[in-house]
């Protein structure tokens, strides 16, 4: 591929990788349910950015944009369900700290 494309792709991929590191680190380390969900959200943002960059490079922005729109719609539903579960848990134990959730261990 041409040096120019390679340059754009490399820079964006590096930053997307940084987003992934942040998201995964926060999912692994945090004990708060809502923060776990925020971690997932950061990961999804990384993926959408990567898709858009790929579309820009290969000149198929039509396709990648429609994929991204679908992803965003699905993402909202996932967030609503995750929020619902967190809230139901909160109603049960009055806290959303995962330290209290030790009954089930794999």
């Amino acid at each position: 591929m041409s040096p120019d494309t390679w340059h754009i792709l490399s820079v964006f991929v590096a930053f997307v990788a940084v987003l992934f590191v942040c998201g995964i680190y926060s999912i692994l380390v945090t004990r708060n349910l809502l923060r776990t969900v925020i971690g997932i959200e950061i990961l999804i943002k990384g993926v959408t950015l990567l898709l858009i960059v790929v579309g820009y490079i290969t000149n198929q922005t039509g396709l990648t944009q429609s994929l991204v729109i679908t992803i965003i719609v699905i993402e909202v539903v996932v967030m609503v369900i995750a929020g619902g579960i967190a809230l139901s848990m909160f109603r049960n134990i009055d806290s959303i700290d995962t330290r209290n959730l030790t009954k089930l261990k794999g």
Partner: protein
Amino acid sequence: MPSLLVLIPLFGIILLNLPFRRLNEKYVFWFAVFLLSVQILFTISHHSLFWQQGMGYIDSFFKVDFAIDSLSFIMLLCIAIVSMVSLSVSRYTIPDPRERFKFINLLMIAAIGMNGIVITKDLFSLYVFLEITALSSVVLIAFQKDMNALEGAFKYLILSSIATIMMLFSIALILLVSPGTSFAVIAAALKESPNSAVIIFAMGIFICGLFIKGGLVPFHGWLPDAYTAAPSAVSILLAGIVTKVCGIYTAIRVIAFVFGFNEVIKSLFMFIGLFSILIGALAALGQKDLKRLLAYSSISQVGYIILGFGTGTALGMAGAVFHIFNHAVFKSLLFVNAAAVEKRIGSSDLDRMGGLSYRMPITGSTSVIGVLSTCGIPPLAGFWSKLVIIIALWQSGHYMYGTIAVLASILTLAYLLLMQRKAFFGKLPKELENLKDLKEVGPEFTLPSIILAMITISVGVFFPFVFDKFVVPIKSIFMQ
């Protein structure tokens, strides 16, 4: 008109939710039964007009063609059977009609999602339908909203989101070389750049995501929690079909028709398969909870499927698909019986059980059939699928794997017989003797168990017929 498989349930759900809700609560069960039995009938008769693509403007609305071959027939059949069993059990375990109405709606959405996964021929649509199935399963797991259920649901939601994000990442990288996301386009594009590190990374990360979805061993942490915490009707659905369609079927479809086999993928699959068989079986040996034991057993059986698929030969893959079917049947049977026992004695702790066969003869005896089929005792169905897988291993020269797989069957026998002895044989404990309510469960449980046991026996006894009618066509689609 394969698109009707997803369209009709959706319109049904919309119509049922709009007017006359009180009335609909009565009929929703029979509506779902009707839809699922129609699906069973059509999947058994392959040559009906229903499967012809491009009929009328229903299919042309979608402008895509669907994956209609023996592989999808068998998966659609499994989906319909297991959903039907789950539906029947829910009639007893969820007594409130309003709750059951919601339950059946969600079950139908999960069925739409799984049907979509099976018939789609596009990597991105696959992601969409995986997400539908996962979300409806999450809500179903959390259905009773006690703490364990919510926790299991949350774990499942987070892990399955991570899995789908890995798949999307892989799709993004694949789009660098491919002008579209349909299977054929990607398969053609991947052939152009075979040895690129980026593309190999993309494939690897996709397969990892599928392994998380399927609950294979390095990624199995969420599975026992989710199965145990879910309501009984949902654990039947999850164990019988959801993880198999989401993880295993997609892996088979994507590897065989898009990514293509190479030595690395083969050895990875076989290694993960063997690892799952052993770890699942060893963990099952130490379990004190009936549902948890069955969950680990499920991991171990999925290991056989992946092992058979990893051979890369047509026979091995056909054996793997056949084992998916058998596993759906006998694992739902065992979970139905677990649900029946849980309903009667109020817990699924194995130490509190014993001698239940005297009080629940049908549950006890069908459970024996399920156990024997899982261990692979001839002439039941489980024996034949395991035999096909082991023959395929032997033919492709993996003698070590074959031997270990046979030996692991003994481990399976050990933990399942232990379960059977603790739960159904032996003496009835004193505390249970005084339990007046301890008698055979109603037809909501026994009818599915009897039917599933009949399927297991008849597939085993009429194996030559089944081999010609189902296994050989599957073999032939993998030959190409």
